[in-house]
């Protein structure tokens, strides 16, 4: 910080208000056009997913409303009764693809979001505990993390789902187990740095219990890198979920996610009905690209080596 100049009271110009860290983050974030684009994509995706029941032209789960004669219509055609225009066409079960994508985004985002939040919570606690206690606790926990991370995520998830069975909740559990280790490792790294700082020592001197020191003092200071990882990890989680659903071991048919929609379109693709797989994939890509752009840029900004 620059030293305050000695000024006489009457000549003192109004000092510009110092920027809070949040304001600085916002300013620097908005300065990058790609990051802003990512944020816009992300906001649109979340909006669509949240508002799906209100903005979708049709409820794709309501089988009574589907007319089998409308199945596999190309984009832009009208329904038999003329009530709806299928802007993105219909799939094999005569669902309006646009509506199915809106609802699919919902499933994909919920599965991804819930699993990442849970993995973040579990992983942070494990990582903090490991860093705080050190010794054999640290060695044991990190060995488990190492072993888990040496396995490709898709394999672990596949085996877990083979054991757990199908269902949205099962997919979420599998994704949590796959992801917690990333957070544990990152949290430990951040916590090791914080552990050596004086405020931790001060908190210990006040004979606060270790859960309190960990959760109230150290955790908030470890959050920035974890948030970055969570953003990028959410993209991974969504991609992984769609892959698992595509393979037929993910979400059940009754709650189609984007991966399920793409998988449904696969069988019709060879006969030239490209849109059934194409558009859900685009929606998936938009969500993932948005997350990656935002996460990438956040990482650059929150990196301590980042030139300011």
């Amino acid at each position, binding site marked *: 910080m620059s030293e305050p100049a000695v000024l006489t009271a009457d000549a003192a110009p109004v000092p510009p208000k110092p920027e809070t860290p949040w304001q600085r983050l916002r300013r620097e974030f908005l300065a990058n056009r790609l990051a802003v684009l990512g944020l816009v994509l992300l906001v649109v995706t979340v909006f669509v997913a949240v508002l799906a029941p209100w903005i979708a032209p049709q409820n794709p789960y309501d089988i009574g409303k589907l007319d089998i004669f409308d199945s596999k219509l190309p984009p832009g055609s009208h329904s038999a009764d003329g009530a709806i225009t299928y802007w993105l066409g219909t799939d094999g079960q005569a669902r309006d693809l646009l509506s199915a994508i809106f609802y699919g985004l919902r499933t994909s985002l919920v599965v991804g979001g819930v699993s990442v939040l849970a993995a973040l919570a579990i992983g942070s606690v494990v990582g903090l505990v490991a860093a705080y206690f050190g010794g054999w606790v640290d060695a044991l926990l990190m060995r488990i993390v190492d072993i888990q991370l040496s396995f*490709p995520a*898709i394999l672990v998830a596949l085996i877990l789902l083979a054991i757990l069975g199908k269902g949205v909740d099962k997919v979420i559990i599998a994704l949590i187990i796959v992801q917690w280790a990333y957070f544990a490792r990152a949290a430990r790294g951040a916590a090791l740095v914080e552990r050596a700082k004086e405020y931790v020592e001060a908190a210990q001197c006040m004979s606060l219990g270790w859960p309190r020191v960990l959760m109230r003092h150290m955790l908030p200071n470890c959050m920035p890198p974890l948030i970055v990882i969570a953003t990028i990890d959410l*993209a991974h989680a969504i991609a992984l979920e769609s*892959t698992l659903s595509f393979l*037929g071991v993910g979400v059940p048919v009754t709650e189609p996610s984007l991966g399920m929609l793409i998988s449904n379109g696969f069988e019709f693709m*060879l006969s030239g009905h490209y849109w059934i*797989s194409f558009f859900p994939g685009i929606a998936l*890509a938009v969500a993932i690209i948005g997350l990656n752009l935002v996460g990438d840029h956040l990482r650059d900004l929150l990196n301590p080596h980042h030139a300011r």
Partner: protein
Amino acid sequence: MLTFIIRRLLQALLVMAVMSGLVFVGLYVVGDPVSMMASPEATELDREEIRRNFGLDRPLLEQYAVFMSHALRLDFGRSFLTGQPAMGLILERMPATLELACVAMLMALLVGVPLGIWAGLKPTAWSTRGIMTGSVLGFSLPNFWVGLMLIMVFAVYLGWLPASGRGQVAQLGPLSLSVLTLDGWSRILLPALTIAMAKCALIIRVTRAATREALPMDYIKFAQAKGLTWGRILRVHLLKNILIPIVTVFGLEFGQVVAFAVVTETIFAWPGMGKLLLDSIITLDRPVVVAYLILIVFFLVMVNLLVDILYSVLDPRVRLQEAKA
């Protein structure tokens, strides 16, 4: 060095034992494989017979003990479905997967490294922006969807390449390879391209970062001062020094590709071991799943070990020590 290798192998054995145990128990709890094996009109007596044949009537712990004692003699049991030795089934499919992974990684490397170096040399050029945007797309686009779209364009609309299968293979010693025949190439191209696109994006990023780190170094400046041509500086001085991160990523990703083959092989009906795993998971063919896991753990550990050994070859300053592991 030798103790380093031995310790790593022992660790691998431990992980293999733990993993196989967990999966064995997990799959045991899930369901009764007999319902898959017996014909629908089988009587209860037939089912008992099958159970006895495969040793499924004994307690779980005993089953596991029997399995492990056989596994130590490299016998991993027989597939519930076909009755063939599980490990044999997998090894039979393995060359197809490895071939696909090798072709894909080579494609990624041959495109990714030059583009990455270019992007590192000219960080502000428009071409670099194009490359980097492309790389974001490369690892953002869901891989299986990219595969589907490639099929749509090249197989359905253009009709240039077949959409599935492995086609003609030629024998090379004990291996049957697709890359030796023209038909094989036409079939391996699309699945390999699908994998390569994602991996190429990663390699571009790593190469670019390494190049940018190496460029301001004194040895580059010195080489310039000696009046060497850029071509020589790039090939000899730069490339040698950025090889370590590239080799690391290459090694780790190779393992990932083999594991991820489950997806690619399913899309392109490529008869590799990933497809076999998925089928076995769906039919609860426990011996095959467990044998696959043991094999893949071994494989991943070997790849990592190889990468570590390569470090010391590439960079004489690196000494293999246990302290870091």
